[in-house]
């Protein structure tokens, strides 16, 4: 099999993505790395050099809290997203072909919306003067219209809106390939539909679920617009602070150092998730 693939796909084709990866990722990353250890010139820009002052500034309770906030918000968004997307995808895969295509096209359409549009739409929808607050007040659910933004709820809603289509698209192929007889077998053996879902469907698809969690986590970890638009300052993630340092404080070395740390944290979380997944597999 692998020999056949090797014969029909020339090896040098691999050089093209390798070169692109080097040009678009490795070189910029090297530049960022060098900037992160450069010497900041107060009131100016920075001079090349090697000092760890920017990193040292990160080892404070202030940045620790920001990092924790970022991880918690991205992790929470990933959990909510996949908790919604997984049952959604299972039901989607059980629908008729044409209905499935329609839903998938709609999800792809959602992907074309930028973070900016999603953020401003939600901040309008959740506002006191123009949003659902008026509807609730009119229905008599609340006495007067209230604002639901900015806040953690608004931020999570935005991040989940952003991450949901990705979670579904990652889950859809394995879910639609799942043998429907597995669920039927569980039912024939006495499991209620919910019990069968929890004891068979979810564990059988553990790997894709973990994949979707990682994808949404990494994706929302980099979001910097939504936390500013929909969150309060205490919900501002590391990405927001990187933008703040780089653009408004003109402290590129600190911004670069924060970006490096963010990348390392993301990698560490992904590694941890994969490790946990593998251990469960071996131990189960």
């Amino acid at each position: 099999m692998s020999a056949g693939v090797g014969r029909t796909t020339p090896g040098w084709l691999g050089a093209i993505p390798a070169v692109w990866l080097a040009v678009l990722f490795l070189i910029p990353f090297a530049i960022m790395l060098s900037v992160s250890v450069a010497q900041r010139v107060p009131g100016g820009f920075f001079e090349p050099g090697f000092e760890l002052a920017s990193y040292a500034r990160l080892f404070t309770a202030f940045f620790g809290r920001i990092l924790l906030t970022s991880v918690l918000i991205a992790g929470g968004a990933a959990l909510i997203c996949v908790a919604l997307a997984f049952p959604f995808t299972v039901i989607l895969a059980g629908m008729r072909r044409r209905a499935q295509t329609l839903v998938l096209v709609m999800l792809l359409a959602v992907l074309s919306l930028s973070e900016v549009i999603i953020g401003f739409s939600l901040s309008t929808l959740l506002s006191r003067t123009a949003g659902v607050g008026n509807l609730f007040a009119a229905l008599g659910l609340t006495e007067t219209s209230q604002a639901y933004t900015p806040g953690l709820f608004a931020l999570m809603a935005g991040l989940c809106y952003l991450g949901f289509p990705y979670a579904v698209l990652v889950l859809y192929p394995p879910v639609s390939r799942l043998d429907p007889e597995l669920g039927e077998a569980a039912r024939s053996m006495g499991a209620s539909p919910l019990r069968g879902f929890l004891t068979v469907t979810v564990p059988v698809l553990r790997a894709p679920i973990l994949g979707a969690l990682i994808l949404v986590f990494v994706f929302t970890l980099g979001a910097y617009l939504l936390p500013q638009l929909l969150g309060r300052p205490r919900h501002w993630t590391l990405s927001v602070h990187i933008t703040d340092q780089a653009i408004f404080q003109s402290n590129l070395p600190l911004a670069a150092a924060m970006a490096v740390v963010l990348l390392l944290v993301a990698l560490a979380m992904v590694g941890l998730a994969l490790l946990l997944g593998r251990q469960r597999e071996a131990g189960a």
Partner: protein
Amino acid sequence: MTELTLRGLTKRFGSLTAVEDVTLEIPNGRFVCLLGPSGCGKTTLLRLIAGLEEPSAGQVLVGGQDQTRVPTHKRDFGMVFQSLALFPHLTVAENVAYPLAIRGVDRASRRKRATELLDLVRLPDVGDRRIHQLSGGQRQRVAIARGLAIDPKVFLLDEPLSALDANLREHMQVELRQLQERLGVTTVVVTHDQKEALTMADVLIVMDKGRVQQMGAPMDLYRDPANAFVAGFIGSTNLIPCRLAGRAVELAGTRIELAEGDRVKCADGDAVLSVRPEDVRFAEAGLLARVTFIRDLGESVQFTLDLDGREVSALFAPRERPGVGLGDSVHLAFEPGQRVVLAP
């Protein structure tokens, strides 16, 4: 005692009727094969019994209790699926004990019962393995063990042996039958393989186009088919068009008097005569046919003959092989008492 009763069971998918008005009774402890060509509705009928499909009309009764509206998971059936549907995330023993875990049986009892069941299907010492570490035949046995875990009232199997190669398949047919005899569980197996059905079944139900064509003991169906479809589907047969008039048929310009034991299942007029290849004999006089092909199969010899433009097949034991060759003309006789006249 009747274990399983179906009354007017019907299933329609849109304009397509998959199962039409099936009424039958299956006595306790019998091994029943649902036999028919693909698309005849046999799998749908099994799924209706299991509760995996909701009938458009009719009832399913188990031990006299109406189960039609009872959801699958409350029916206490055992089932083996065509894909086997073993759970890849569980070990072999956990798979077998899954129905018990769902019913809240404690871990030690589950373990004990799983070992018992794996011994029963002659698969000891694999309890801790993963499903993907087993061979096809072993997986088959695990699926059977799992289906029997709760001592089901009715054991349902949907083409359970279809994934196995021919040798293993024949072996498993015998083993499944012996296992069922030992346990005495009422069993319904769906199959499209008539040899498999004849090997295993006490009761054969032949289906075509969503309807039950005939139900009965395998040899009764073989000797006394109700119609041309059953005659052709159970074993092989020669279906020769003829005209029936009283106790005689006319075919290829020759009149043949029917003997005692020959069965007539239709009215006078156009009909078909069903004669098994082993009941075709070469005679001194009578119907004239020409040998067009000879198949030597070792255990038997099969002659293909041309009778008035129709193909007729005759089967002989090697010792009784007639001394005729390809292209020779021979006279045919059909064994009296073994002939069935059916509606065309």
